[in-house]
């Protein structure tokens, strides 16, 4: 097949521009936001710098990782319908190691720089006088934080690499007979099974506790990790959909049609509702219980400076996808799907913003050049990584044993 993807010049230019904006923002941040001013004192700009980096890096790492998670769950469930665009997922998943390194560097800076304005539990003196934090010391400390993050990020990258390698091998193997296909699928499933256990231990439980929930170390919510998972899962599906539409426009993905698009739309629709369900569970129980140590989390969000973002979050992530995607025809329309995907990615970025900021910069929220600049930088990196993968690999996994199922997929 000669139909290889070549990165168009305009695409190249735009991701270069995005990355340049990101780097420029970072430099300007170093100059104007005074990131090394230390955690103590009233230097809100310094906190804003690290909080912005934390929000963006964790968010984009997690939504990129969803592509890998999606491959894994559909492999384990023997979901054949997504094979037609599985390479798109692999292209996005190829960014996991890169994003993992960036995120880990940022986390390392925050921990080693002893930024107790981001993670209050880093302040040893405060912990010593704080009975609650003293009890949590065995879990909330630098060693557990960095060690667990490192192990998880390494294993994500490693297993992702293995799964990707298996998929690329199938290109050289030629059409598989039954026994080869069986063996190949079994190998895929083994790695996927390892990954899904890891995922349960990371995104679905411990990682959000460490990275995000420990920003408010006195407060806890048992819904938090699932909430984070739902948030990133919808955004990850939206990201996949955007690239599926993009590659389809570029003349790739010959087997993808509106049936696949509709199913991706269904995923976004369903998991937007799932996200809302978890959001509401967390909110309603705390609101109804009305216990001060729990409501402290929602106080700044519901009544303080973050009121606008709080409601925007709900409208953009629930009302918009719910009403727009309700009709089947909307899920089969490329323009509408692209529009909603962009809305969802932005909306859950806002969601992460309101998870990180109220506990770090308190009553001085900024949502301007620094936050958007860094986000654009990460978008640029994702665009670069996907096109890098796509220009090296055929975008349809021709020898996958489930390919036929994907071609005849009919909703």
């Amino acid at each position, binding site marked *: 097949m000669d139909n290889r993807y070549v990165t168009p010049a305009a695409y190249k230019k735009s991701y270069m521009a995005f990355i340049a904006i990101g780097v420029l923002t970072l430099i300007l941040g170093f100059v104007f936001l005074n990131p090394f001013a230390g955690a103590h004192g009233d230097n809100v700009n310094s906190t804003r710098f690290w909080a912005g980096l934390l929000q963006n890096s964790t968010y984009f790492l997690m939504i990129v990782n969803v592509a890998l998670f999606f491959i894994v769950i559909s492999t384990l469930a023997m979901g054949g319908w997504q094979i037609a665009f599985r390479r798109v997922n692999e292209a996005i998943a190829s960014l996991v190691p890169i994003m993992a390194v960036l995120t880990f560097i940022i986390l390392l800076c925050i921990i080693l720089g002893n930024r107790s304005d981001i993670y209050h539990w880093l302040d040893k003196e405060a912990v010593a006088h704080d009975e609650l934090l003293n009890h949590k010391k065995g879990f909330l400390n630098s060693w557990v934080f960095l060690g667990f993050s490192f192990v998880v990020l390494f294993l994500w990258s490693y297993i992702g690499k293995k799964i990707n390698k298996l998929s690329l091998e199938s290109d050289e193997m030629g059409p598989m007979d039954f026994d080869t296909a069986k063996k190949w699928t079994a190998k895929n499933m083994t790695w996927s099974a390892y990954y899904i256990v890891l995922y349960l231990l990371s995104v679905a439980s411990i990682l959000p506790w460490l990275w995000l929930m420990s920003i408010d170390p006195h407060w806890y919510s048992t819904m938090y990790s699932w909430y984070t998972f739902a948030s990133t899962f919808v955004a990850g599906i939206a990201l996949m959909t955007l690239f599926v539409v993009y590659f389809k426009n570029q003349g790739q993905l010959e087997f993808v049609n509106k049936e696949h698009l509709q199913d991706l739309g269904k995923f976004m629709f369903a998991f937007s509702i799932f996200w809302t369900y978890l959001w509401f569970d967390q909110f*309603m129980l705390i609101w*109804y219980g009305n216990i001060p140590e729990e409501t402290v989390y929602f106080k700044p969000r519901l009544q303080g400076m973050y009121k606008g973002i709080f409601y925007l979050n709900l409208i953009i992530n629930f009302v918009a996808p719910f009403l727009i995607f309700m009709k*089947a025809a909307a899920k089969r329309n490329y323009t509408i799907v692209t529009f909603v995907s962009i809305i969802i990615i932005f909306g859950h970025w806002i969601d992460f913003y309101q998870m990180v900021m109220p506990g770090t910069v308190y009553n001085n929220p900024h949502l301007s050049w620094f936050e958007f600049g860094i986000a654009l930088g990460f978008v640029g990196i994702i665009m670069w990584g996907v096109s890098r993968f796509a220009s090296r690999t055929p975008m349809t996994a021709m020898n996958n044993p489930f390919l036929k199922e994907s071609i005849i997929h*009919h909703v």
Partner: protein
Amino acid sequence: MIKSFVVGTFEDEKVLFPAVKHVRKAGLKLHDVYTPYPVHGLDKAMGLRETSLHTAGFIYGLMGTMIAIGGMGWIFAVDWPLNFGGKPHFPLPAYIPITFELTVLLSGVGMVLTYCYLNQMMPGVKKHHFSPRATDDAFIMVIELTGKSNEEEIKKFLADNGAIEINTQVAEEGWWFGRYDREQTLYRSDEVLA
């Protein structure tokens, strides 16, 4: 209303699809196609319009939402305001679970009933079976005989398109409880034994 139908039996999906398309092209009135399992794409081939069941579901759901919010709002805020732990008289978050349940309940039950009405089915309703093989291994295409159509022509047409068994049946259309097709038995053991 009593009508006559020409019934053609097909044994292969691949033969059925072109036949369905030809029937529509020839301008015959396709009554329905009965299959043992849902056949993907058959609804499009038959030219059925998209179902409006989901629109009905949306309206029922909206009704549920309004009944729940309106009902609770009227009871707890207007008619008999009570103080529940210092909460406002119209505590929207506390109403959401009940609103959600009522929305799902009304849209679910409403859609099931609408579905039954649209298909003219209900527990206890007897329907005419054009061929018992439709529940087993064959695809049954039923063409309605109207004033304009000729029975012999249709039979020939079906035979040309690969139907293996063709007959004419007279059946009553509609929705009747119990009294309709009382004598019909789908499966008779003596028939098989003989």
